[in-house]
């Protein structure tokens, strides 16, 4: 047990690892560039703010009310009118062909019927393939019905009004929700991968025995492997944080120093998880497979992409097993809601606890596996 907490030789391992990292600048550039690149790709791909839905219009009426409706469509953020078709068949055809996601059919005599108070109907067709787009398009299509009437009669009388107030993310931009989650995810992925090969790599190259005959202690080796990668991870964090602020324009509501300190703690936890894998795996391939085994479920249950409170209970509980879950809570708390330690400690404590646990487990596992 005393050997487990023997930190001697840590400086030597840090020296060696740093030299090895710096020996290959391309690998280092990849390590720092890849998370930022992933953040950009995923951040733009996962965007549930439904805007600019391409739509087609068949205007059989050609009256002023029809024109007012079409102007309303074009002026909305939700729809972009990309096609005008000359018959009803083409309207549906455009959806089937995937050229548009919605189509509007303004029947003959629409303006006349409207002015005569005969409640004319505009046909709205929504492509249900993507449920998120469909729901928003459907909802927007209904609200659009008020536009022609208002414009024509200037009547704005409504019996009552609901004034909803959206806290924290007033524009309800989905980037504000997703990008912090993605930051947690990409940082976890790269850091686990960085250290997953650390020990098993030495084993496969035959350098491990040569290390173990020196007075380097177990904790010294483990921390020595970890520390240089914490520096790399700190650069990665800086890169994605700049991406969050300046590429996605997400404002950081809380204390940025707290964010940095807690992020660095999480990165150590995640690097430790990689190290643990590295002490269990017998080959580098095994290590990579184990890392993927951890990464995939953490995408789903950590709340990085999907809101956890909407998940079935077992999935929510499963989420508590993964350190990333806590970090994403912390990230969103600080970035979006401006939360501090007083509010976040229920996430901070388990995350730090995991860190210590993982490090001790990796050390025990390593000590067992090497002196058989």
């Amino acid at each position, binding site marked *: 047990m005393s050997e487990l907490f023997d930190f001697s030789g840590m400086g*030597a391992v840090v020296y060696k690892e740093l030299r090895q990292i710096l020996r290959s600048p391309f690998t280092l550039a990849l390590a720092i560039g890849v998370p930022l690149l992933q953040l950009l790709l995923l951040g733009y791909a996962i965007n549930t703010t439904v805007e600019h839905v391409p739509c087609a219009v068949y205007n059989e009426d050609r009256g002023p009310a029809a024109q007012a409706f079409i102007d309303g469509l074009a002026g909305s953020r939700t729809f972009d009118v990309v096609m005008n078709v000359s018959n009803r068949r083409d309207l549906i055809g455009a959806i089937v062909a995937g050229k548009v996601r919605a189509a509007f059919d303004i029947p003959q005599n629409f303006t006349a019927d409207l002015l005569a108070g005969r409640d004319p109907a505009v046909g709205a067709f929504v492509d249900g393939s993507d449920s998120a787009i469909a729901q928003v398009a459907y909802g927007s299509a209904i609200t659009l019905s008020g536009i022609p009437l208002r414009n024509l009669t200037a009547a704005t009388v409504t019996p009552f009004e609901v004034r909803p107030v959206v806290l924290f993310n007033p524009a309800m931009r989905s980037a504000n929700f997703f990008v912090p989650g993605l930051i947690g995810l990409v940082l976890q992925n790269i850091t686990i991968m960085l250290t997953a090969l650390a020990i098993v790599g030495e084993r496969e190259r035959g*350098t491990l025995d*040569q290390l173990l005959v020196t007075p380097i202690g177990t904790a010294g080796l483990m921390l020595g492997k970890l520390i240089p990668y914490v520096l790399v991870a700190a650069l990665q964090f800086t890169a994605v944080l700049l991406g969050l602020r300046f590429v996605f324009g997400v404002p950081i509501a809380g204390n940025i120093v707290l964010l940095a300190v807690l992020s660095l703690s999480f990165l150590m936890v995640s690097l430790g998880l990689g190290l643990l894998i590295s002490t269990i795996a017998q080959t580098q391939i095994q290590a990579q497979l184990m890392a993927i085994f951890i990464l995939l479920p953490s995408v789903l249950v950590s709340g990085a992409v999907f809101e956890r409170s909407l998940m079935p209970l077992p999935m929510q509980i499963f989420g508590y097993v993964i350190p990333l879950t806590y970090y994403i809570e912390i990230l969103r708390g600080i970035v979006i809601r401006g939360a501090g330690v007083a509010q976040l400690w229920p996430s901070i404590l388990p995350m730090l606890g995991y860190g210590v646990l993982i490090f001790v487990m990796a050390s025990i596992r390593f000590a067992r596996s090497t*002196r*058989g």
Partner: protein
Amino acid sequence: MNDPSIVLNTLTKAYGDRVVVDNVNFSVAAGTIFGYLGPNGSGKTTTIKMLCGLVRPTSGDAHVAGFDVETQANQVRRAIGYMAQGFSLYGDLTVDENLEFYGRAYGMSASAREARKRQVVETVGIGEYMQYLSANLSGGWQRRLALACALLHDPTVVFLDEPTAGIDPVARRDLWDLLFVLASAGKTFFVTTHYMDEAERCSSLAYIYQGHILASGSPDEICSMPDITPVDTVRYGIATDDVMETFRQTHNLQYLRDATIFGRDIHVVVDRRITATQLARDVGVDASRVEPVRPSLEDAFVALTRKADAA
């Protein structure tokens, strides 16, 4: 100097039912080169790993440089140098960086590192390659670098696991010359090898086969063991122009005990009563080409292995 620097006492390692090293006893005198021989898979590396504290013995014990390998592992580590099989340094570090790393690993101060580095670099003569990536060195230089790393903290006992496997004959000879110089300065070397010429140069040897020590002692002692050339037999060397034909001939001899080809010679063990002249006539060579020979180490190990297999 006469205190043994390595002592193995009923040392045993078993993985489940498979006993890899079985009840091994021997000792190695300080300041000598000890050769540990045996076929692949006979337990050589496992023995070394137990002595270096990399593998825990199942039973028995061992002392290295006066320290118990199990209970005083830390002291053992500081006292020994170890050169693993194959290239076991960091190919993506330079020669200098590898040395620097091992210096730091032993907690040496910056000034001590510089001084010791200069010393070992001079000893192994690797000075001009200091800034080379070690992956780009030839096999012989890689072994020298590994030796330099193993010597850096000035250990009293050095374990070398097949240090000359896969390097050219000149590099092999140079490395051995270096070992002699270092041994004469008081270091103890524990070396495994498959090369008989290297074994002949060791001060003492042990031969392990299937986990058992079949023989130990100086090369001369091993060659003159009664098991090698039984009392009622005599060993002749036959020089011949047609090795295969003569070898076939020897197998027709009623009195033949053993025959082994050594390059262009054949070593035979025959009944004691048989003279060189008679043997020459029976295998059809000139009498001048048959003479009694002292068994070589290879003869000894072949004989010991056959005897063990027969038992």
